[in-house]
């Protein structure tokens, strides 16, 4: 909470005066600090601290480490360098889209049925839809989280376990 007088310089000096007077009885003592300090112009302070985060984010973006949808950072890095971790392949060239899961633990609700099916052969989209008891004609572009909402009890952790069990015989 602050006082309503915050906008006014509540001293007795006329507004036109260019100087203020420290009241009698106060003790004007220069500030003592163990630090050597230098004034920073406010404009420079604000500009520098606005540019700094922009540069950091731009740096990470140019390094391919920026995704607003996606999965583990290892899979992200793998697809970014082109070496890949198994099936790590970006579904969006600009680096802002989902990254294909490298392991069942990387499966997220934001991924589509097709992305998961492509990442874990020989699983098919139809098998995944069956797990969610979704109609077989459901588009492959449907996000898993939408299937979770429509399903009765099936969720992402359960899907990860199911994928793991399906892959086990091959590994």
């Amino acid at each position: 909470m602050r006082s309503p007088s915050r906008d006014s310089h509540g001293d007795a000096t006329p507004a036109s005066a260019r100087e203020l007077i420290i009241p009698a009885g106060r003790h004007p003592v220069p500030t003592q600090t163990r630090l050597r300090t230098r004034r920073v112009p406010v404009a420079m302070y604000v500009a520098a601290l606005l540019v700094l985060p922009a540069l950091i984010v731009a740096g990470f973006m140019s390094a391919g480490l920026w995704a607003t949808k996606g999965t583990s950072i290892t899979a992200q890095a793998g697809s970014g360098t082109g070496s890949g971790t198994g099936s790590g392949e970006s579904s969006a060239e600009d680096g802002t889209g989902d990254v294909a899961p490298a392991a069942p633990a990387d499966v997220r609700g934001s991924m589509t049925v097709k992305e998961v099916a492509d990442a874990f052969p020989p699983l098919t989209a139809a098998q995944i839809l069956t797990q969610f008891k979704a109609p077989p004609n459901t588009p492959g572009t449907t996000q898993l989280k939408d299937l979770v909402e429509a399903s009765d009890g099936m969720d992402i952790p359960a899907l990860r376990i199911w994928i793991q069990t399906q892959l086990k015989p091959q590994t």
Partner: protein
Amino acid sequence: MTAPEEGTGGSLSAADVRVRVPRRPASWGSKVRWTRHAIQGAVVAVVGWQAVGHVTSGGESAEAWCPLGGFESLWTLITTGRTVPHVHTSSLVLSVTVLVLALVGRGFFCGWLCPMGTVQEMVHAAGRAVTDRVPPLRRLRRRLERRAGTGRWARIDQSLRWGRWVVLAWAIIGGAVTGTMVFREADPWIALLLVAEFEFSLAFVVLIATLVLALVIERPFCRYACPLGAVQALAGKLSPIAVQRDASACLDCDLCNQACPMAIPVNTRTRVTDTSCTGCLECVGACPSKNGLAVTLAMPNFRSRVATTTGTESDRQTESELEIAR
């Protein structure tokens, strides 16, 4: 600039010294404040556009722009190389960004960029606008403001400020143990982002409580519960930038204290290094004395353990004149 004047009795004793100090232009504070509000508005607009796009066209979630997720996901990331659900690489990048920003500029993110802080400021401003127009409410608010900084209320305020550290510990440890974002369930920012997909939840209750409290208290969530603010407070302890008060130019007028949204007693500090400082510069803008408060950069001092502030040439001149006056 600084000239000793004779006291009322005509003799020059230490108690009667009157010193002239340069006045800061009255509009300076307004310029800083409106610059800050413009930047805050731009950030809110970008995040709002993102949130609306997510709801209407299924675009990427504004949640991906939340830096807290990176800190919550830290242990899982170190141990497994994966992030917890709802955390994307963008969150990790923003976590690093916020950390660097705090190391350099202390609470700058909170005061100038954080959209949750902006929303609270907007609600508080709306509350003030209403109470200013309704006399009984105005009297009540002034009575509360008089009591706020003293006695029991001050002790309650100080005690509640420990809440940030508790919430931070809960978010980090909970995230490490469960592998999920435990704080997400109570995060008012998430509730605000997903307000269109309304769901009655703990986060929604916290959001409502925050907004109601924001009517009478400035930035209640930032003061008492924000884990991201707590992370920045820790990193900000290493920051070389801080608002510094020059006691020789301080009028002791209390305007800086009244202006501070986090209720920091600025006029009792030499450097405002409080963990709750948001770097909003409201105190600097409110200070009528040109040299009373300023943003300063601390540098290593190898010459002396205790040294007088070295600012501009005029500051040094001020000090020598004060020496003579005394």
